[in-house]
């Protein structure tokens, strides 16, 4: 079936779409009620976030926009130490979209939600002029335990910076299909639930976590260093990048440090807990390749900075991503 403007009218066509595709996949009591608003158990302290996903193509090696839109929002919740609980999803569908594709995407959302331990409690569908594209917004609510304070302001000199795995896979996957470069790189899109819940279970004193998405490691670390007013020194040869991604970047003049990921995070912990944290992460799903990539330092000048000592002993100062003229990857 081809989706047309009528499917966004709010009438019978919309109901058909909701019943046959969404409710069927997001099979839970709340969604089945088909209220305009879900009423669900809460918690004393909650976390809340949102992201829209406009990636093209919507299906790519290793994942699809359905998996992505769950991972993106769940990971943002996890990064503040929240237990991710509820997801809302807003679909913006361009007329001409195929309902079979939509079904696959929605199925993937449902599967990923299960993996991440969240339930989808509310949704919305709009159809707009266009050529068959699908965009999804997800918002998420998580529960935060009292006393937990994980934020970008908590970096402390002496802390070590752990990166949960290789850089650039998601970005290279999306860009490869856009640029017609064949390779076997797969998106890393994944919910980081296991890593975070294991760290919390082991009572690791996490200062800061951040998923390394749009803008890449350099942007994320620069933002953190500015929030906490510290420097971060990275060791270039520790930063894990697959050979395929490295050469992919070489071909297009890109830098893995600025490439987006959708299943990677940095975790900053006090030096004396870093060993244990690393072990916990490595034993968690999607954390197998975690490494310590750097150290938090006192701010040396009047502006916080992230830097790398290069192989010839030079000092390369990183900054946030400027414009790299790339297509959308999330």
């Amino acid at each position, binding site marked *: 079936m081809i989706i047309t403007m009528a499917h966004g009218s709010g009438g019978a066509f919309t109901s058909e779409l909701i019943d046959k595709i969404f409710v069927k996949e997001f099979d839970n009591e709340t969604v089945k009620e088909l209220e305009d608003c879900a009423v669900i158990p809460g918690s004393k302290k909650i976390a809340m976030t949102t992201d829209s996903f406009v990636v093209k193509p919507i299906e790519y090696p290793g994942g699809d926009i359905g998996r992505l839109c769950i991972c993106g929002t769940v990971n943002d919740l996890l990064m503040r130490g929240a237990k991710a609980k509820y997801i809302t999803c807003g679909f913006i569908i*361009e007329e001409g979209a195929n309902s079979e594709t939509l079904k696959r995407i929605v199925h993937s959302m449902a599967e990923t939600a299960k993996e991440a331990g969240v339930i989808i409690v509310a949704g919305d569908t709009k159809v707009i002029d266009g050529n068959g594209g699908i965009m999804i917004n997800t918002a998420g609510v998580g529960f935060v335990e009292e006393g937990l304070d994980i934020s970008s302001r908590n970096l402390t000199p002496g802390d070590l910076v752990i990166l949960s795995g290789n850089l650039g896979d998601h970005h290279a996957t999306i860009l490869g299909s856009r640029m017609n470069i064949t390779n076997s790189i797969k998106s890393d899109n994944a919910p980081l639930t296991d890593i975070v819940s294991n760290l919390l279970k082991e009572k690791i004193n996490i200062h800061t976590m951040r998923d390394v998405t749009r803008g890449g490691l350099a942007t994320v670390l620069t933002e953190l260093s500015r929030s906490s007013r510290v420097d971060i020194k990275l060791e270039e040869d520790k930063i894990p990048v697959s050979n395929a991604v490295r050469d992919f970047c070489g071909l297009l003049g890109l830098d893995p440090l600025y490439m987006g990921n959708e299943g990677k995070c940095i975790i900053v912990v006090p030096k004396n807990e870093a060993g244990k944290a690393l072990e916990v992460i490595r034993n968690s799903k999607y954390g197998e390749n975690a490494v310590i990539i750097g150290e938090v330092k006192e701010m040396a000048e009047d502006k916080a900075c992230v830097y790398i000592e290069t192989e010839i002993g030079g000092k390369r100062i990183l900054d946030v991503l400027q414009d790299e003229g790339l297509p959308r990857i999330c």
Partner: protein
Amino acid sequence: MAEIDVKKYVEFLQKYDGEELRLMEVCGSHTAAISKSGIKKIISPKIKLISGPGCPVCVSPSAFVDKLIELGRDGAHIVCFGDMMRIPGKESSLNEEKGKGLKVDYVYSPMDILPMAKENPEINYIFACVGFETTIPVYTLLLDAIIRDDIKNIKLLTALKTMPEAIDFLCANDAKIDGFIAPGHVSVITGTKAFYEVSNKYKVPMAVTGFSPKELVVGIYALTKTCINKDSFLKSGKSLVGNYYKSVVLDEGNTKAKDNINKYFKKGDAIWRGMGNIKNSGLYLKVEYSKYDAGSFDLIEDYKINKACRCSDVLMGKISSKECPLFKKYCSPLTPQGACMVSSEGSCYQAFKNGD
């Protein structure tokens, strides 16, 4: 009509217990107005209100849609009335093709195409001209403007139809109709006289009727009365065609509009979806204006989406929508199996929506 107290006519129609009367409306707006008024639920079961081929969009054959899609794929921008978007061609509709990149816009008035065409001289525009006598004069004004302003990037694809010929066809083909609720807005243009010939030929009563619930009561009451007293009418030489929409319908209709139609268009055979070819029931641009035509001749294919669809019987008044085996089971506005379910003026659509 505010001044007429219709209560006693409603009562008459409720209590009617004479011979079964089959009354057909042949105007989509009547179909919708009858549904909305709930009148079917209150009149005697002996008066059956039946929907005929009153939706000009529904009766366009699949070939017309296919031709629009073909023109659009060749780069033209299609402009049409909103209802046209969902009508199925052989494999697709404008709506579906729009999602695949076809340029389609819908407008309130055909005249709205003029500023579009003037602003984008490099784009070729096609207006999808459907309609009965009510709408055809509008296209003549569009042609006036195109010629006056020497606009080179508008063409018309036409599937224009005329009502008296359709009624003649129904009568000639055993439609078993006792009387016609004659189309109010068509009559504004044609005048009541346009229906005299067919009414005389088949001795069939007709009532030109308005669209408000009260006007419907008046028209249906008058038509019923005329049917009952047909013999007296005939004997007294009184016309079986009555005009109950006098505020806008004249015997002669709108002569200026009729002249305009005759200036640009000539009669020809036309395919009505589900009904086949009706002789002389179409209007086509005259040869001298053929440069404004986008290929409207020979659009004869009338592809049937579902073999079991009984649209043709519905349009001919032989069965009601409910009697079609597909109605509400396989056929719904979401999954239309025939033309009558597609446009919001289609008889099956109206039957579905308003729970008739």
